[in-house]
């Protein structure tokens, strides 16, 4: 039994060694020009396309993963920044709950964006690239079979031209040639079918990948824009609250000074009275030319007649001060809230504000 087992293994090993020797011999002869080589220019071109496609796919995957990592990092930093704000925020300040809510929404947006990017783009890219190793191996196998085929063909030719006409040898050579050709052609046929299909599928992949990425980014950025707009509005109102609060602060400071003086008087009663008083800090508020909540100015390019009561009538050339929407739900894509500059300059109020189409105006 041991001998039988060893014999089988040895046989396989010998067979493989023989194959390698034969192929090496064929390669050398082809290089020296003594044996013609079967060439398939179209197939070589397809292989070149395949290699190019694989390189591009690999690079794209790498960039996509780097992008995903950057998104993740951005998410973490954004989260910590918002936590920092949340801790600083005093309960007495305006909009405590809104700020917390915005922080949570921002966190959810980043997380959702990251997960969807991962699902739609990276995973499909991985699936796409998984095809390449298998086909690459098959291409290599085809090349080896091609060498075998050429070797068998040359062997058959040399046997036929030999001085000694050995029919048995010729028949065997012919049989080997037929078998090698059959094997080669099977592999060749399959690859001929698959490579063009794979080459064409790259368009579909790119379309899907970038359409997913751009679609997700569009949604994500639009929502983030709204959240940040809300945060900006809250900061604006907090600033207004702060200005009103300055009076209270001044009074508090005065009391503090009085308390300090009292302590000193107590300690120095027998010897000397207190001579010091804290100076009172006075803060005056100055009027601003524009309403505090103005985002930017736009110039009207086309006349617009209001069709609803909440819309703003515009004439070409009007300057409009764009305001944030009081309620985010009211904001429609393509519409802005604003008040005419002329009205504000005259009346100093926002009573005449209304919505108008953004594409009728141009940002200044």
């Amino acid at each position: 039994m041991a001998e039988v087992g060893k014999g089988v293994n040895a046989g396989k090993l010998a067979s493989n060694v023989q194959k390698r020797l034969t192929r090496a011999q064929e390669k050398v002869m082809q290089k020296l020009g003594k044996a013609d080589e079967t060439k398939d220019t179209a197939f070589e071109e397809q292989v070149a396309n395949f290699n190019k496609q694989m390189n591009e796919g690999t690079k794209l995957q790498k960039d996509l993963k780097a992008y995903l990592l950057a998104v993740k990092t951005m998410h973490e930093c954004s989260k910590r920044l918002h936590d920092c704000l949340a801790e600083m925020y005093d309960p007495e300040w305006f909009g405590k709950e809104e700020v917390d809510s915005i922080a949570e929404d921002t966190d959810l947006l980043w997380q959702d964006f990251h997960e969807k990017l991962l699902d739609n783009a990276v995973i499909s890219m991985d699936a796409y690239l998984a095809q390449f190793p298998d086909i690459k191996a098959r291409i290599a196998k085809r090349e080896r079979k091609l060498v075998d085929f050429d070797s068998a063909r040359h062997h058959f030719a040399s046997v036929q031209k030999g001085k000694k006409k050995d029919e048995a040898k010729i028949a065997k050579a012919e049989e080997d040639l037929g078998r090698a050709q059959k094997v080669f052609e099977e592999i060749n046929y399959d690859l001929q079918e698959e490579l063009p299909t794979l080459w064409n599928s790259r368009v579909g992949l790119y379309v899907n990948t970038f359409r997913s990425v751009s679609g997700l980014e569009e949604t994500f950025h639009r929502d983030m824009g709204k959240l940040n707009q809300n945060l900006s509005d809250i900061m604006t109102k907090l600033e207004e609250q702060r200005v009103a609060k300055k009076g209270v602060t001044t009074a508090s400071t005065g009391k503090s000074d009085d308390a300090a003086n009292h302590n000193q008087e107590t300690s120095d009663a027998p010897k000397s009275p207190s001579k010091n008083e804290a100076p009172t800090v006075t803060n005056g508020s100055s009027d601003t030319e524009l309403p505090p909540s103005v985002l930017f100015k736009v110039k009207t390019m086309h006349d617009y007649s209001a069709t609803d009561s909440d819309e703003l009538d515009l004439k070409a050339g009007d300057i409009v001060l764009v305001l944030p929407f009081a309620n985010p739900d009211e904001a429609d894509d393509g519409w802005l809230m604003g008040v005419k500059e002329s009205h504000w300059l005259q009346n100093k109020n926002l009573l005449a504000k209304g919505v108008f189409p953004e594409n009728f105006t141009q940002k200044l």
Partner: protein
Amino acid sequence: MAEIKTGIFAKNVQKRINRAQEKVLQKLGKADETKDEQFEQCVQNFKRQEFEGSRLQREMKAYIAAVKGMQQASMNLTESLHEVYEPDWHGKDDVMTIGKNCDALWEDFHQKLVDSTINTLETYLTQFPDLKVRVAKRSRKLIDYDSARHHLETLQTSTMRNEKRIAKAEEDLKKAQRVFDDLNVGLQDELPTLWDSRVGFYVSTFKNVSSLEARFHREISFLCHKLYEVMNKLAEQHSDKMFTIQGAPSDSGPLRLARTPSPPDDESPDSSPAASPNHTLRPTSPGPPRPKSPSQLKMGPPKPPPPKVTPTRELQQEQIIDLFDGGFPEISVTSPQPNERPGESLLDLDFDPFKPDTSTPIGQTQSPVSQTLPWDLWTGDAAQPAQPATDAGFTANWAADFGSSATTVTDESANTQPAADGQGWPPADGWPTDSTPQPQGETATDEDATVPTFMADFDKMPEAEAEAPEGDVAEGEGEASPASEPEGGEGPVTTPPTDTQPEEITASSPPAETPTSTVESPVSAEPEAAEQAELPVEDIEKEQLSEESPDSVPVQETEKESPTEAALASVEDKESPIEETPTIDAKPEEETSSLEARPGDEPDNVEPKPTDEPDKVETQPGEVPDNIEPKPGDAPDNVEPQPGDETSKEGAANNGNEEEKMPIPSVVIEPASSNEGDDDRDGDITSPIATGDNGMIADCQTTKDSSGMPPRFLFKVETMHDFEAANPDELELKKGDIVLVVPTELAEDQDAGWLTGIRESDWQQRGASAKKGLFPENFTQRLE
């Protein structure tokens, strides 16, 4: 100096020892401690504030670093897309533009974030170290003060009263107190202010960050939407490629052209101001420019206001257009090309049908004339007249046609003459060489006046199509008037025979002159018959009528045969007492001619267009009998003046022309036996005429088939917004209308965003008379 330094050092050591001693005593409870709860609260707030500020700075720096990383990754992704993108794919330039804009946005966002937050934070945080030092100093001064105070108390309570020492201790106490108070007051002012300032700082920091992010995200969102759309279009292009050879360039070409016209829809308001000066600088040379075009170009097509509910895509495109303002002019330049090509091909199609149709019947008409020549007789003479006969036949056909139209429509001929003069007629130039000076003048004048008219009408056809609706109306009137006039001409023929005579002579005289030479040979055979036969003048006139009638018979329709028979009976009753028995053969022919006029009137009245074609058909066969009539008439002239014949042999052309001057007397002497000969020839000519008629009828059918769509129809569009016409040449539209678009005449109008079209419903109801007008392209959506 060394001693001084040593002194200072010793003094510091002493101070530290004293403070340490005081601290120990306070801890042991043996010395009371001055406390300021208020101040300690301020210090507490200060420390918290410093901590929070430092943390914020750290987080903000990390955030900005993350933004930088995000920017880099986004740039790499864009670059990767740009590399894999192949030139023949849709939107190559768009992808590049989007990528660059995206990078610019990220860079701008990052830079502004750094400027507005990091710098502010650093400025804010530099306040803290200084204040911290001052707080520490105040603590030390407080201890000195307490120490001095306790020292004084000790001296005062001791048993040995040393007034001098007490005074010194008192002095030290006052000094320490003053120093402490100075520091204390300063800090008590500054700390609360600093504490309150944190609110303003936080507000400005986060306000800047959030507003920057809001704008950044909004702009990036538009770019992503744009990229999304490009990918969608690439997918459409890709779906086509699935079924075609990968490397076929022709497949991708048309796809690009098909998509190119759509962007100018949004671009139109921007381009209208530019188009206006172009129109002013370059007036249209082919035709008179419209008086109202400049106002239209200045106004430009009004933008439809976006409805509140669903303006998403339309509005976003506006935003994108602002971003890609530089990209669209290229697209605008490209868009006119596809419109021009179909226009040219349509024009070619319009012209081709006319040429073969007009030439075929004339050729057919000529050949039978040549065939009927008696080749057996006068072989030598026949050879010479054969060529002029062919030319004469061709010219005669034209002359007869326009002769009648010139006679009946004076106004039209007056209008036509200027055009005729401008055009020129090559055959007329060649004709004078064959005739003497005197007849040359007459012939040239008649031919120039009549023949060129047809050419003018032919040229008017394309012009009419190109003109505005007013032109169409004018053309319609022009076509209608000649149709009705010939009918009037035929009317008198039917009722009073006497009145008809002068018109017949007038109409037939011009063609009679030209074919005189052709008639010479048949005339020689009939002189004996002419002499033998004797007919009254009235009978001869009636025979002329009968000769005309068989020519028009083929035009008759089958459905109208029964009324013909009824009319035959009535006509027989009227004419029986007048005519003699030998003239019975003439009766049915006359009756036939009277019936032809009536059925001809009906189709003319019902449909103006079909009338034009039948009129031409009827007129041309009428020319043929005119050619035949002069032949028997000339015979007696040849016989009587034998010396005239001899003269003609010497100079055949000249003699022939002279004979042309006497058409009237020859008609009177026409023999009876010649009728049989005429009948035979009429029979021969009838079949080819019928063939010609069939050709013409086929043309009518072809014309009707093409009326399914307007000439040079391009494509259909659906109206998306109501459009109220502001000028007479504009087309009023209601939402939902389907419009058939035809080429716009002025390039400026098309560039400004206007299209020319006809409403589908209007076209189906009124055909060619439907109103054609301008309308703004951006109010409609193209249908495929």
